[in-house]
């Protein structure tokens, strides 16, 4: 039997004006188990707390009920007071007789009656409370950043800055991501490479940062503070430690007809390659699908010319396992595949390009050395049509339902740059809406219209038809002029929707994080926890969480880093003790609970049990990881046998409250 103390607060007149606190204290004093019942002016004041503390000591209380304001207000106050007096802080329950009683009722008699009932419910609950101890779990002082684009780089730099080791896993041979492919950035029009490459170098030189390029995460185990991650270092057939990045091999390689993915396939590279001049790490990689040596066994030129002896045709994939305290996902985005949009003739006409292709076409390091030429005949285009919202804002069956967010601004940028560099070129932009929220964004767009005379036309392009004379017929309606237009363009640029990288979905499964239907990672709370995933210890950085431009990405990357640092500075994390636990004797191992757990906190173990018939048998039972469980209780209802219960809100406690209220 518990020895319970009841403390009824007047809260000045806040409670006492409509609830007869003396009567409440008197009535609750008669409840079984209650050994002392007192009222006081301000229970949360220091003297009020002392009253509680003294009573705990004097009456050897095992449970405390405070009838006061909402537990959201002062539960912690009284828990601390109890702890200070030597009582487990989870032996305290609050009866909310202010917000949910005195403040909403006027009649003293009924309000007092209700307050007594609420108090009785709290007493009934305390009877079944058990002391809970918050567990602790150590934190591995190392972070993993998955993805080496600007988001990943920024996050890694910030974490390293705080003094923690951080690994970047990048699936491509170099870090840099999409930003490395971009020519200029809006709205300042400064050169992307000029601001990105120093960061790449900084990352490679930072003593706290390890870059695993050409690598993938293949397995994630564990939980917040204690992840064990397996990273596959894909064979690049070049010894990273020996290669000096001199590039001689790439020059001498006889196989030069490999589509260059860095330039969006607009030109070719050799079978052994360094993606671009500023690549980090600046190490060559052999593409086994094209390398003559790998395919036919005849060649070996690179091996011969490499003075460092870095070439290793027999290299195998390597797996490394590492412990991390925090994981930041920065897997980024890709433009969508435009195969199904026949009307834009993307697959039929080389002069219909995506915006990212245009970036390469205009880039000084691109296929044309920075001169804008039509891919088909390398002539200078005089009329360029931009089409917005290609695949964005569509019905699910037609494309992506969301706005890709960055297209309006980069299209304005492109239009402006073209008009700046080639004033003889007419530029048309067909838009549905121009969306420019952002600092200096609308000013930027207005400049394109007012200063650079870019023709913005409201209306979606209906049809793009390559003509035999090399021109491209663009048919669209001008909704404001109410006429249908035909433009004989030289080039068409499609603002393709962006989508999360394809590697994100399997990664989310490994991380047990949530994704939305578009495969963007879901944040723990859309407003209040935008850079955390719902799974503790997993943070989100950049476009993997939703379409973002560079400043936003960098801001989120730093925010994610800050959150990760906040976790890594702790030696251990205190777990919420109000977590689920499974009674193994009753667990059926049916996996229902696991299916509804949003955190992946439940795993199954095969355990040997002594069975009722005196034999032993191995049974599959659920096991809750208290460090991961957040205590929602979804599993407790999914469990038909009642094996799963929740500390602090157990089945019996809630039913005791129900009983007390309905008494």
């Amino acid at each position: 039997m518990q020895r319970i103390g009841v403390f009824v607060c007047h809260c000045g007149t806040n409670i006492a004006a409509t609830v007869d606190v003396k009567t409440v204290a008197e009535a609750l004093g008669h409840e079984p188990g209650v050994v002392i019942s007192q009222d006081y002016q301000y229970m949360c004041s220091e003297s009020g707390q002392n009253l509680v503390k003294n009573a705990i000591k004097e009456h050897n209380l095992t449970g405390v009920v405070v009838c006061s304001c909402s537990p959201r207000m002062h539960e912690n106050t009284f828990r601390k007071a109890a702890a200070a007096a030597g009582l487990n802080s989870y032996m305290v329950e609050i009866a909310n007789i202010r917000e949910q009683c005195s403040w909403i009722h006027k009649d003293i008699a009924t309000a007092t009656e209700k307050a007594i009932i609420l108090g009785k419910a709290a007493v009934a609950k305390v009877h079944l409370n058990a002391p809970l101890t918050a567990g602790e779990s150590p934190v591995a002082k190392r972070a993993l950043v998955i993805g080496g684009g600007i988001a990943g780089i920024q996050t890694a730099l910030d974490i390293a800055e705080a003094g923690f080791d951080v690994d970047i896993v990048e699936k491509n041979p170099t870090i840099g991501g999409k930003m490395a492919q971009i020519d200029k950035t809006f709205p300042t029009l400064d050169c992307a490479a000029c601001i990105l490459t120093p960061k790449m170098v900084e990352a490679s030189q930072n003593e706290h940062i390890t870059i695993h390029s050409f690598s993938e995460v293949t397995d994630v185990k564990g939980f917040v503070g204690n992840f064990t991650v397996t990273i596959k270092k894909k064979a690049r057939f070049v010894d990273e430690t020996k290669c000096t990045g001199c590039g001689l091999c790439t020059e001498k390689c006889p196989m030069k007809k490999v589509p260059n993915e860095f330039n969006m396939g607009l030109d070719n590279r050799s079978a052994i390659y360094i993606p671009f001049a500023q690549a980090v790490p600046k190490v060559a990689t052999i593409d086994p699908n094209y390398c003559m040596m790998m395919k036919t066994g005849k060649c070996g030129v690179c091996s011969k010319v490499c003075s460092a002896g870095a070439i290793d045709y027999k290299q195998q994939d390597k797996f490394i396992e590492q412990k991390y305290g925090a994981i930041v996902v920065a897997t980024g985005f890709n433009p969508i595949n435009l195969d199904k949009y026949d009307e834009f003739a993307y697959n039929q006409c080389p002069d219909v390009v995506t915006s990212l292709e245009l970036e390469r076409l205009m880039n000084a390091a691109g296929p044309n050395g920075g001169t804008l030429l039509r891919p088909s005949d390398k002539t200078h285009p005089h009329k360029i049509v931009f089409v917005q919202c290609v695949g964005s804002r569509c019905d699910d069956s037609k494309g992506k339902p969301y706005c890709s967010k960055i297209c309006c601004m980069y299209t304005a940028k492109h239009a402006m740059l073209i008009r700046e560099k080639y004033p003889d070129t007419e530029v048309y932009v067909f838009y549905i809406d121009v969306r420019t929220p952002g600092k200096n964004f609308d000013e930027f767009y207005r400049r394109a219209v007012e200063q650079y005379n870019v023709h913005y036309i409201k209306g979606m392009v209906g049809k793009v038809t390559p003509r035999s004379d090399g021109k491209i017929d663009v048919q669209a309606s001008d909704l404001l002029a109410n006429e249908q237009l035909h433009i004989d363009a030289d080039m068409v640029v499609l603002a393709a929707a962006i989508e999360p990288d394809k590697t994100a979905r399997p990664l989310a499964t490994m991380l047990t994080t949530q994704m939305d239907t578009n495969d963007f990672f879901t944040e723990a709370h859309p407003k209040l926890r935008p850079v955390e995933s719902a799974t503790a210890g997993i943070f989100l950085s950049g476009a993997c969480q939703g379409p973002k431009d560079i400043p936003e990405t960098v801001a989120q990357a730093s925010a994610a880093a800050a959150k990760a640092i906040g976790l890594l500075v702790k030696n251990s994390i205190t777990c919420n003790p109000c977590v689920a636990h499974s009674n193994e004797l009753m667990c059926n191992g049916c996996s229902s609970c696991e299916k509804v757990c949003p955190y992946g906190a439940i795993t199954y173990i095969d355990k040997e049990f002594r069975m009722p018939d005196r034999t032993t048998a191995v049974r599959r039972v659920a096991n809750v990881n208290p460090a991961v469980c957040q205590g929602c209780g979804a599993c407790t209802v999914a469990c038909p046998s009642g094996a799963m219960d929740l500390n602090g809100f157990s089945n019996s406690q809630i039913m005791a409250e129900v009983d007390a209220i309905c008494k």
Partner: protein
Amino acid sequence: MQEAMINRAKQLLADGSVDRVIGWKRGEFVYDITPAVFTSAEELDADFVYDDFTAANVSKYLVKESKKEGKILAFLKPCDTYSFNQLIKEHRIVRENIYVIGIPGGPKLDAERIKANGITGILGAKNDNGTLIIDTVYGEEKMPYYEALSVKCLNCKSKKHVVYDELIGEDGDILDSNRFDMVEKLENMTAQERYDFWREQLSKCIRCNACRNVCPACTCEKCVFDNPDSGVENKAATDSFEENMFHIIRAFHVAGRCTDCGECSRVCPQNIPLHLLNRKFIKDINSLYGDYQAGEDTTSRAPLNDYKQDDCEASIVHERGVE
């Protein structure tokens, strides 16, 4: 059929493919058939039976049997295969230890339905073109075959075996069963009528737990209703509330997991149409969350362990049907 099953079972026992066979054993009367495990050809020859009265679903026995040493051969009717699959999905049986032979299913007869026709002293029964000819102590009696069918076979949902290692006889199809007709009829009654209907039915309950103990979805190590710590344990239907509570919660616990095998209604000594409760859940799940047949596969997410962001709100219950 019985012959073919015995022969195949003997073969599999002889070549060591299986160590045991779970099937059915002949009883005192034509109808009282008991599920049983056989270990030898002699036992099979002596007692193995598969006929019109062999209605029991043996899949639940595999929870225990499959954890024993050696391999067991299980003969499963189409409806039983759904239960079997569901048990695999919930990790309750060890698939590797079971060799499943799919056998043709019902419709099966129920002696209780014959007796309800006033026929007593039953010594034998055979089907003669839709008429059941019953040999009794008091002479020969006749009744329409259909009227003697077990309640679980009246609305057969499927003749298809969803899992098997081999088949004896041919596989059938999923049927258009009209199995929700009675549920719908009840839904169209007034609340008072529904209440009266269920009060009359559930008040017959004697809390023997036969429905629960036979149910292949009720395989809990310890049922909440048997567990004093659960707070809802109750042994006897002292008050009508406890009958309601038991049957509502039991149906809820198997919602999305119940394959509609009908065993609950088959075994109820008081003839309570318990399957209607399960069918109500199945019907609701189908109409609100998309067609779902428990046990059809071993991987899909059970409807109650799943959600869609645009699921209907609970208020749909208030908005539809008869008040």
